[in-house]
């Protein structure tokens, strides 16, 4: 069975050129970059090169503004807890949105429950958009951090970050954006976006898992998250993961070179997929903003059936996708993102996310458009709430 992978929002295959770049750093150039000798020096130089590439990808001004982490989650934890800890004497109010990734939401909840912070969770409209005016209105005397994601991982909606950034700047409030879904797929420039902190993760754009970065604008007050040795200019302890960092650098380089082309390809596949689904299946609803949307994201609610069973049927046909149904996560409530956008539990349960990556083809989109309608018909025929 030919398999079709359309879960690039969850993770992506590592580009062969990235694997190749990493290879020497496992057993040839294996020295600890903090070590004094030639083995360490070579690793150190490799990290410097990788950092330059990532810095360039996000348009940062200084290489020292970029700290490597173990992924997007650590970058989010570091940004939010680090700023909270540095500024808690100044204030204990944080603004975020209801549709953030759990790496942001659960970190905010931790600060609320255990560290005495107050958090405002801004609502979104039916497309998943945060209103910049709401951000402005939510800012208080004691607001020390605004954290709003750049692009939503479930529904693909792209937030007006530059505008929110301007508001934050004017108010003098530190602004973080979780750009894990954006970096490497759409243009990201920390200066145009007016952000002080930005999280990214390698495995979302054909880089390795287990590595990400936090951009920290010069002058931003932030405390450490990982205590220990003086690595990363004494900002993040632990022996540098040289192969992964080199891989992230290579992925950044590749992403930058091919950004426009990749975007165009994904948009065309995405729009083909969306219109194909809309033509072939009734009682569906596209989730997320139709235009302000990640190039590779398709998210539809398919009424009267449930997400996990859709995924299972697709999986049996060799198609990998994901869902915001509670049933895929073993929890009780479906996606907090879909519920925040006003979907009923019932409709949210029937959501399907297909996320395209740079290796997907037109033929694969066709295959999905062939299989999915059958799956839906099959499940609807079993559904006690469908009166087809």
């Amino acid at each position, binding site marked *: 069975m030919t398999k079709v992978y359309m879960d690039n929002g969850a993770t992506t295959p590592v580009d062969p050129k990235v694997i190749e770049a990493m290879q020497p750093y496992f057993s040839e150039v294996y020295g600890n970059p903090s070590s004094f000798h030639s083995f360490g020096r070579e690793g150190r130089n490799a990290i410097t090169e990788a950092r330059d590439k990532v810095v360039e990808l996000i348009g940062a001004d200084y290489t020292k503004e970029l700290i490597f982490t173990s992924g997007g989650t650590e970058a989010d934890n570091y940004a939010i807890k680090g700023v909270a800890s540095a500024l808690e004497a100044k204030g204990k109010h944080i603004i975020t949105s209801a549709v953030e990734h*759990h790496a942001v939401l659960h970190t905010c909840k931790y600060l609320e429950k255990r560290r005495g912070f107050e958090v405002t969770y801004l609502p979104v409209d039916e497309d998943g958009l945060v209103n910049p005016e709401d951000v402005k209105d939510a800012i208080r005397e004691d607001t020390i951090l605004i954290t709003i994601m750049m692009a939503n991982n479930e529904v693909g909606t792209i937030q007006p970050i530059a505008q929110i950034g301007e508001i934050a700047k004017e108010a003098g409030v530190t602004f973080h954006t979780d750009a894990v879904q954006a970096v490497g797929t759409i243009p990201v420039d920390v200066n145009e976006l007016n952000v002080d902190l930005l999280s990214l993760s390698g495995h979302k754009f054909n880089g390795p898992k287990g590595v990400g970065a936090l951009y920290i604008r010069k002058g931003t007050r932030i405390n450490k998250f990982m205590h220990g040795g003086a690595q990363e200019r004494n900002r993040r302890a632990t022996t540098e993961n040289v192969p992964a960092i080199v891989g992230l650098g290579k992925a950044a380089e590749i992403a930058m070179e091919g950004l426009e082309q990749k975007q165009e390809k994904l948009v065309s596949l995405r729009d083909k997929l969306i219109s194909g689904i809309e033509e072939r299946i009734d009682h569906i609803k596209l989730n997320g903003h139709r235009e302000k949307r990640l190039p590779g994201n398709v998210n539809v609610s398919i009424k009267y059936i449930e997400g996990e069973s859709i995924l299972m049927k697709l999986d049996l046909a060799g198609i990998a996708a994901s869902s915001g149904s509670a049933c*895929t996560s073993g929890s009780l409530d479906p996606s907090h993102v879909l519920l925040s956008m006003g979907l009923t539990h019932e409709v949210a349960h029937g959501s399907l996310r297909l996320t395209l990556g740079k290796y997907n083809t037109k033929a694969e989109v066709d295959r999905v458009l062939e299989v999915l309608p059958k799956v839906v018909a099959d499940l609807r025929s079993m559904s*006690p709430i469908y009166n087809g």
Partner: protein
Amino acid sequence: MYTDKVMDHFENPRNVGELEGADGVGTVGNAKCGDIMKMYIKVADDKITDIKFKTFGCGAAIATSSIATELVKGKSVKEAQELTNKAVAEALGGLPPAKMHCSNLAADALKKAIDNYLGLETKNECEDHHHHEHNDFDHGCSI
């Protein structure tokens, strides 16, 4: 995650459909819970002579519905009443822990269909089954 038996019943569910002129019909769950199961039974000589189901829900929900119909078809009403959700899960070779409670309601649906046949009223089981305490940090992974 699922046993071969679950997958078999999910791919080839037995006794899907409605029964026209059913002697008893039972529904448990609601769409908010993520699972709805509806069971139709025909009874003759105190035996379940025919049974069908319709299910909105995940793989486990569909498979448990399917095997439950198989387990009781031809059995006496009393035997059918004694079927437990646990027995259904066991017949499938087990279910993932997360699925033990929320998608394993087929025996309940059957019981409601029998009650309906017997002329008894029962409440919807969803609230009971779904709202055990859970903590905010305990959500699934969004990826």
